[in-house]
């Protein structure tokens, strides 16, 4: 075979690429061409690009090693525009598209000539594992400076600096059987289950389904395996009960068979999702799969051998060599040396030979290998050197030769003279590790199997593994295993499945593999040239040996001390070799050293895909009242209260405005406050929680859940209540009205509504099921408008048929009637201390009532006000806000609200017992008081800490803090509420508030009721 003109390593035929479609791409600023069907890695190899990156710690040149998810080196920064940057993309998993732009993540000024490599060469020896811990300690003050330099070397790729133009979404999936991996076992399993009528999802991380069959030398039914794949995939695609997901990685296996599958929907098309019909589809999608049973057909990863210089570009996995040749028509060099411990890897040499390139030698660690593939190689005249291994790769930016020698793997010794074989590629294979990551996510520890020289997964109930994923590497057996496991999985679901007919596979005799991990060198490991175990994190065999020497004996310690396995590949290639080396050093067996644990993700997933659509405007629900549009149109600023958007204040255009300037918050609030105190204001109080309570035991229930008494509250009356947890601390408050003998309407704080509802149900369902009472949330059903101020009655009278006369509709009464032609419940309760009516109407009609009020209200100066004014007005009256003036450590007594505590109620209500514990009986507890700054122009800072002695040295004994503080336009002074140690008995004393700006404010302890202490105004 000859080679393609401008792609020196591209074969003229073969592979699954589309040669008619040429794609242009840029790598490190240079333009290249590849074909549709290429990965970035195969295209780079085709173009003879050897060095794709620089290593993390030593800045050594690195090339492509693998062909899939296990690739440790070929990490690139993708993206031509700033917003489309993606760091650390694995070139072996990135499909090539036209216009792709990528660069190496490390290397300055470029990967060919990297300045840092000098540091690596010279300084590398000064950087054994853990060297950070042993140095940079003196002088102590210099650490932050040292660290600045250390940080300069941090990272692989870089974050984009602009917002992501793409979107991501989630799809919730459910199935009977999830099959992960569409190689031979997965396809056989999926087809079996699908024909059995089960709901099946089949996913595979590669661009097309088929797995190892896509580059297999084997024949199925006497035809290339890929043809069988095509037939099976076509049949599956035609079935309604099957969902096929190529380009989809199962990245996490969570509890109860919840598996996340990350589908790359558009990454193969461009760096941003291309428009379809004018709509930009999601760039990638997370399938949140709840499966009945899961079958892991995830295959195996080949283990490289660990020998000196094994990181020089041109060292590849044997299987990768085959994959590039057979799947992409790319042969990665001219002269190959294969170093192997098993028969299977011989395929690489045969494929290389088929590609018309020279196989210099096969170096087999075994004595007298005799498998069928070995015989095939012999028959072709390929030189096979037995009992030997590549002990060292020569070359710096590309392999130039392989030093091979006979070895004694058991004794870890080189036993013969080394011979140097000139070559440009070394393929190695030390065996195959089942891909057990997903099973490991479930918490099940894998177990070592000496037969296959690898860890096999332990499986929870409902999880199955088939084929290579559990160490069955033989094709015929793997196919049969897929069928068998699918039948088992379906049986567990109570379904039956018929075994499908399997394609005919020629039986192949394979010789036994031998155990070889680190290849011995003539020099001891600490003195030999670097033998890499974890290529991405630059962890060497010497580092592992040193770690064990220093007492790090658990594999977890070794990994953490050396950083082995902490890269973005999670040690897919290196972990087992690392364990083997640690075991050798500690004179233990691999399973004695520990096991290997993997965590999600199997391969990294963008934050965006995990976040899905829950970002920007949809990050969290915004809850609106029925009057929201009016508030927006009338210029309200909004405050976030829980998920609600509440009007905070309504700044108006200033009377002296030239360009429509609006009032400041202070100005708006002062105006709103005075309007309420002097005329009439209106508040949208719809966000308050409202719970409809019905049943013959409703009253008894209230008496148990609230601190105060409810037995005598008459129909037509309202009462304020405090709700405590059973530890005696206030949790919520609100007004509850008696609508009928067995019917109450409870209100809660805005933020507390959902919690209170659940609280009521908790007590009813678990503690007092004998009480006949029901709770229904009506928060959203009723819109609530508070009309308050001296003119409230006059205004309301204009539009209601309810008799508002002072004596017929008293304070803390409620009435029903019409307001603005709407049936309404009107509650005469007040949170401002002024005459107030809370009007509840069915929310669909709220805007009409609100507007009618304004139509009639203009002449009374009706002013809309927001939460800030509400806070000022209630604080002037000493009304607390649960959660602001109380904080989970405050009892009703601390708040001075003994009047709302029914000490002699027959039932020991929730919170009562706790009030008599020794700590709650203390007299020096923090208690609610008012504070009046000595300087009336001062508005104390909310959260300011209170001291008795302002001259005390730091640390100062603090005796309380300011919980609420405002400027009162009524008092023409600042004022505050605070909790203060023993405050109730300290009226009139002076306290101090030392502030960050150096000023110390003095304030007098006063009653928390600042306005209308006798409460006359609300009764008018």
């Amino acid at each position, binding site marked *: 075979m000859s080679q393609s003109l401008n792609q020196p390593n591209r074969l003229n035929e073969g592979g699954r690429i589309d040669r008619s479609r040429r794609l242009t791409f840029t790598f490190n600023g240079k333009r290249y061409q590849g074909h549709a069907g290429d990965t970035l890695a195969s295209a780079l190899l085709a173009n003879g690009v050897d060095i794709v990156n620089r290593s993390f710690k030593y800045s050594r040149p690195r090339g492509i090693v693998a062909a899939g998810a296990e690739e440790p080196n070929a990490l690139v920064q993708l993206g031509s525009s700033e917003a489309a940057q993606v760091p650390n993309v694995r070139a072996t998993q990135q499909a090539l598209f036209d216009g792709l732009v990528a660069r190496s993540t490390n290397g300055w000024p470029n990967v060919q000539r990297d300045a840092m490599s000098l540091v690596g060469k010279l300084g590398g020896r000064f950087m054994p594992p853990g060297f950070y811990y*042993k140095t940079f300690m003196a002088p102590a003050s210099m650490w932050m400076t040292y660290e600045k330099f250390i940080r300069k070397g*941090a990272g692989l790729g870089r*974050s984009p600096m602009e917002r992501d133009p793409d979107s991501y979404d989630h799809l919730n999936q459910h199935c009977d059987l999830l099959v992960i991996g569409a190689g031979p076992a997965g396809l056989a399993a999926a087809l079996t289950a699908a024909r059995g009528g089960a709901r099946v999802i089949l996913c595979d991380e590669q661009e097309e389904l088929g797995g190892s069959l896509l580059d297999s030398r084997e024949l199925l039914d006497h035809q290339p395996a890929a043809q069988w794949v095509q037939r099976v995939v076509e049949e599956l695609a035609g079935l309604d009960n099957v969902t096929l997901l190529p380009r989809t990685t199962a990245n996490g296996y969570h509890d109860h068979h919840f598996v996340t599958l990350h589908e790359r929907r558009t990454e193969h098309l461009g760096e941003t999702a291309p428009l379809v019909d004018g709509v930009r589809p999601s760039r990638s999608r997370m399938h949140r799969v709840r499966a009945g049973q899961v079958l892991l057909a995830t295959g195996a990863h080949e283990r490289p051998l660990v020998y000196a210089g094994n990181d020089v570009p041109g060292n590849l996995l044997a299987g990768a060599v085959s994959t590039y040749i057979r799947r992409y028509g790319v042969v990665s060099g001219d002269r190959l040396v294969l170093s192997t411990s098993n028969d299977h890897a011989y395929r690489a040499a045969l494929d290389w030979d088929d590609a018309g390139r020279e196989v210099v030698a096969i170096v087999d660690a075994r004595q007298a290998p005799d498998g069928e593939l070995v015989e095939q190689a012999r028959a072709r005249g390929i030189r096979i050197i037995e009992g030997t291994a590549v002990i060292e790769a020569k070359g710096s930016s590309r392999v130039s030769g392989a030093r091979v020698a006979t070895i004694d793997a058991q004794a870890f010794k080189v036993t013969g003279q080394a011979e140097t074989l000139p070559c440009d590629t070394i393929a190695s294979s030390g065996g195959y590790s089942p891909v057990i990551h997903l099973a490991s996510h479930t918490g099940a520890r894998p177990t070592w199997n000496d037969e296959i020289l690898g860890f096999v997964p332990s499986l929870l109930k409902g999880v199955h593994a088939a084929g290579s994923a559990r160490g069955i590497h033989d094709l015929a057996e793997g196919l049969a295993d897929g069928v068998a496991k699918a039948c088992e999985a379906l049986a567990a679901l109570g379904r039956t499945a018929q075994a499908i007919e399997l394609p005919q596979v020629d039986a192949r005799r394979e010789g036994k593999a031998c155990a070889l991990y680190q290849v011995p060198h003539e020099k001891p490991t600490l003195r030999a040239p670097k033998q890499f175990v974890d290529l991405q994190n630059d962890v060497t065999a010497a580092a592992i040996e040193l770690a064990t020497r*220093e007492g790090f*004996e658990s594999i977890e310690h070794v990994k*953490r001390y050396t950083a082995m396995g902490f890269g*973005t590949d999670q040690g897919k290639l290196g972990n087992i070799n690392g364990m083997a080396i640690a075991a050798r050093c500690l004179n233990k067996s691999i399973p004695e050293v520990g096991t290997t644990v993997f965590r999600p993700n199997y391969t*990294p997933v963008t934050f965006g895909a995990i*976040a899905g659509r829950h970002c920007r405007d949809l990050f969290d629900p915004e809850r609106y009242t029925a009057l929201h549009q009016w508030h927006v149109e009338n210029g309200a600023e909004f405050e976030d209260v829980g998920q609600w958007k509440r009007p905070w204040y309504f700044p108006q255009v200033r009377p002296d405005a030239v360009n429509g300037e609006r009032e400041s918050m202070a100005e708006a609030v002062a105006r709103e406050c005075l309007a309420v105190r002097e005329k009439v204001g209106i508040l949208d109080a719809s966000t308050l929680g409202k719970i409809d309570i019905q049943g013959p035991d409703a009253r008894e229930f209230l008496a148990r859940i609230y601190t105060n008494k409810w037995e005598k509250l008459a129909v037509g009356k309202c009462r304020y209540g405090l709700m405590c947890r059973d530890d005696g601390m206030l949790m919520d408050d609100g007004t509850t009205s008696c609508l009928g003998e067995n019917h109450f309407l409870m209100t809660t704080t805005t933020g507390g509504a959902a919690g209170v509802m659940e609280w009521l149900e908790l007590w009813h369902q678990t503690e007092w099921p004998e009480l006949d009472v029901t709770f229904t949330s009506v928060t959203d059903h009723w819109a609530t408008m508070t009309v308050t101020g001296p003119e409230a009655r006059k205004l309301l009278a204009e539009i209601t048929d309810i008799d508002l006369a002072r004596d017929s509709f008293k304070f803390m009464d409620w009435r029903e009637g019409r307001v603005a032609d709407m049936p309404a419940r009107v509650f005469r309760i007040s949170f401002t201390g002024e005459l107030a009516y809370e009007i509840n109407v069915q929310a669909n009609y709220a805007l009409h009532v609100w507007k009618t009020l304004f139509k009639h209200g203009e002449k009374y100066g009706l002013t809309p006000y927001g939460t800030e004014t509400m806070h000022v007005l209630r604080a002037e009256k000493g009304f607390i806000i649960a959660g602001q003036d109380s904080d989970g450590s405050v009892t009703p007594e601390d708040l001075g609200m003994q009047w709302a505590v029914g000490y002699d109620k027959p039932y020991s209500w929730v919170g009562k017992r706790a009030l008599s*514990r020794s700590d709650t009986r203390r007299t020096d507890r923090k208690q609610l008081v008012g504070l009046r700054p000595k300087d009336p122009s001062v508005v104390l800072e909310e959260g300011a800490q209170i001291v008795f002695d302002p001259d005390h040295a730091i640390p100062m004994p603090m005796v309380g803090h300011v919980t609420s503080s405002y400027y009162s336009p009524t008092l023409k002074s600042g004022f505050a509420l605070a909790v203060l140690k023993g405050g109730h008995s300290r009226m009139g004393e002076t306290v101090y508030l030392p502030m960050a700006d150096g000023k110390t404010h003095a304030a007098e302890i006063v009653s928390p009721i600042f306005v209308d202490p006798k409460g006359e105004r609300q009764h008018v």
Partner: protein
Amino acid sequence: MQRYSGFGLAKHTLSHHENWERQWRNPTPKKQYDVIIVGGGGHGLATAYYLAKEHGITNVAVVEKGWLGGGNTARNTTIVRSNYLWDESAALYEHAMKLWEGLSQDLNYNVMFSQRGVMNLGHTLQDMRDIQRRVNANRLNGIDGEVLTPEQIQEIVPIMDCSKNARYPILGASWQPRAGVARHDAVAWGYARAADALGVDLLQNTEVTGFKIRDGRVYGVHTNRGDIEAKTVGCVAAGNSGVLAGMAGFRLPLESHPLQALVSEPLKPILDTVVMSNHVHGYISQTDKGDLVIGAGIDGYNGYGQRGSYPTVEHTLQAIVEMFPIFSRVRMNRQWGGIVDTCPDACPILSATPVKGLFFNCGWGTGGFKATPGSGHVFAWTLAKNQAHPLAAPFSIDRFHTGALVDEHGAAGVAH
């Protein structure tokens, strides 16, 4: 103990690193010790170290069922800060902070304590009230801290979305410049090496299976490697404390919950402080290796599985992308879970128990790592003197009966 220094490193380089000594021995358990520490995490090792160093009690065994520092020490997000609300907790964490500040030198082990500042964001008016309350309290307690405006925040973290049109706009933040992060594993190893050098026996793969108790007094422990005796036993076993208390015949007001964390792939330096938000719920920093370390929420159920529920991770990353929209295309590498033992008031227990001679140090919840030196220091004092250290006194088990909780949880929700 082989002394570590830059010069020493150079010397070892010449000998191909063949002469490094073990960082700690692997001793055979003795029959008897003066003090047994159950739990070889950061807190346990620190306790042993300070017992030996400050109180001269060196006949000490640290009994660890797995490997040293293998529990929460190995699985946290490494944040160190002391800006707690209540005087009692602030004093304890500030005590720890002061020890952190000289720890690398004290241990001759670089724990990479990096004081890059911690920012707690406020997104609502109540958040801001809580922040002001806490920062004011910290200031008067002598703990550094200030309240930042959105403009100041933007200056320190230019890549954060501080705009008004965020779902929950950032209204301000608390900022503790002395706070930061440390290299978690190194803390355990540093204490282990220093304690070992003073004579402490570190017994790994040694699991306590019961306590030897007679007449209401402890006199040793049963382990899978035989019985070991001591008149004083301190349990520092984080998530497993409840199980140990059960062996000793009493209950603790503790629940063990999964707490998850995750890291991104390594990125070039982009974030050089720690940013936390309780409201949108996520916290984030960047390690010296370049990983973004992100803390997720605590799962509401009990769990010893070292993993939690996936939606918790989703919510956390939604919060991170909300705060840092540019991270949308950054990729999450790995997630894991720790087991946090949480008290109803989100404060620890440092206390004697109903069994004489048996002490517990637990309940650190999400605050354990940052307290490591302080916790060990105060607990060592308590074990040595058989009486609560003044800083430990407020954290006795009794408080759950008297009601004198130190309610960090209820007060301001400044967890983590």
